[in-house]
């Protein structure tokens, strides 16, 4: 009995320790952000590997999510004789929820795991310690550019996802199911508000980008320097950041749309 309580205490203390370390790590990364301006090239290369190379998966999934929304929305709406409202349904669900959330989940799987694995391997092969020996600060040289790259890429990817999704909904709704093209867009414009809907989605995607990159980079930094440690850290990144995104989405949605 006492053992059980003690082990509960130990695991909560461990969790707190990890959380505290993650926070200190974040502070140190934020303190070395000046490198981004001073050596912009480093960040550009990271934006390439984190953002540009995620483009394909984001565009393809955005297209399919939009097309499925077009189908499902149509099937539900046509019962009420309101098939013309399809544009609004597709745009609102994409811009408010699916765009930021699905992009963040894909981003965690595609870019987050890669970041963790890369950094974990750097740590395992003692490249980070070697840098420190050469008086190169790994926070500035390695962590800060990756952090900024993820943070910058996420909102752009989410916007692309939503835009492509709207086109996907158009292809299915207008092209295949015969909703009127003008009604699709005019309905969309009458229910979607720039400040309330689109900007809320952008804010969400910025928050998700921040959290996912933070988790990914920290997991790489914190990985046990063994091959098993890297694989565990990579799994952790995907699991923890997916849960964090979904949980945060609930809170953000409550804050943004709850009272309205």
């Amino acid at each position, binding site marked *: 009995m006492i053992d059980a309580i003690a082990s509960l205490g130990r695991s909560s203390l461990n969790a707190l320790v990890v959380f505290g370390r993650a926070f200190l790590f974040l502070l140190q990364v934020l303190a070395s952000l000046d490198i981004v301006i001073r050596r912009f090239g480093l960040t550009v290369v990271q*934006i390439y590997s984190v953002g540009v190379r995620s483009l394909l998966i984001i565009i393809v999934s955005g297209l399919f999510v939009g097309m499925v929304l077009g189908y499902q929305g149509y099937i539900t709406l046509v019962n009420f004789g309101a098939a013309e409202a399809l544009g609004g349904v597709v745009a609102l669900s994409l811009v408010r929820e699916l765009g930021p959330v699905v992009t963040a989940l894909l981003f965690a799987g595609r870019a987050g795991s890669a970041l963790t694995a890369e950094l974990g391997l750097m740590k395992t092969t003692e490249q980070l310690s070697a840098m420190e020996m050469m008086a190169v600060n790994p926070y500035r040289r390695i962590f800060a550019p990756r952090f900024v790259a993820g943070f910058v890429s996420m909102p*752009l990817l989410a916007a692309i996802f939503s835009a492509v999704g709207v086109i996907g909904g158009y292809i299915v709704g207008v092209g295949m199911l015969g909703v009127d093209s003008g009604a699709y867009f005019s309905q969309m414009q009458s229910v*979607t508000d720039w400040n309330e809907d689109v900007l809320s989605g952008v804010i969400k995607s910025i928050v998700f980008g921040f959290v996912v990159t933070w988790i990914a980079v920290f997991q790489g930094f914190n990985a046990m320097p063994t091959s098993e440690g890297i694989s565990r850290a990579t799994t952790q990144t995907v699991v923890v950041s997916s849960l964090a995104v979904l949980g945060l989405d609930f809170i953000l949605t409550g804050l943004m749309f709850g009272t309205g």
Partner: protein
Amino acid sequence: MKVRFFELAVGVFVLLGVAALFYLAIQVSNVTDYHDRDTYTVTAYFDNIGGLKTRAPVTVSGVRIGRVAEIRYDPEQFRAEVTLAIRAEHDYLPMDTQAAIHTAGLLGEQYIALEPGGDYDTLQDGDEVMFTQSALVLENLIGRFMTNMGSD
């Protein structure tokens, strides 16, 4: 050469992202008519505004000419004060224009329909719409129907 490729790819990526945001702004949301640049405002007092919301359309013969800018309760008149922002080019509305709260469809959104009168003077910035007609409240309607039934 290699750095140039990265820069190019990232440049294209950023442009794509900004273009997507732009597309969302123009095509998906109503950011364009959100900024009705030149507007003048008139107020109207209603006994009951039903479910009218700010940013609801203001129409003449079904054509949208402005939006509801503000709704508040006037504690002196015991009526709702609705501020209408009407686009500046629609400066021809007569003084005795009537404002009514209508519902789009059976369960749709509520909007303000203006009915021009015959006066020569036109509504100016800050004027008040004299004749107003409240929103139809379904419960009141049913109540009136029931009392009429009883008196027959």
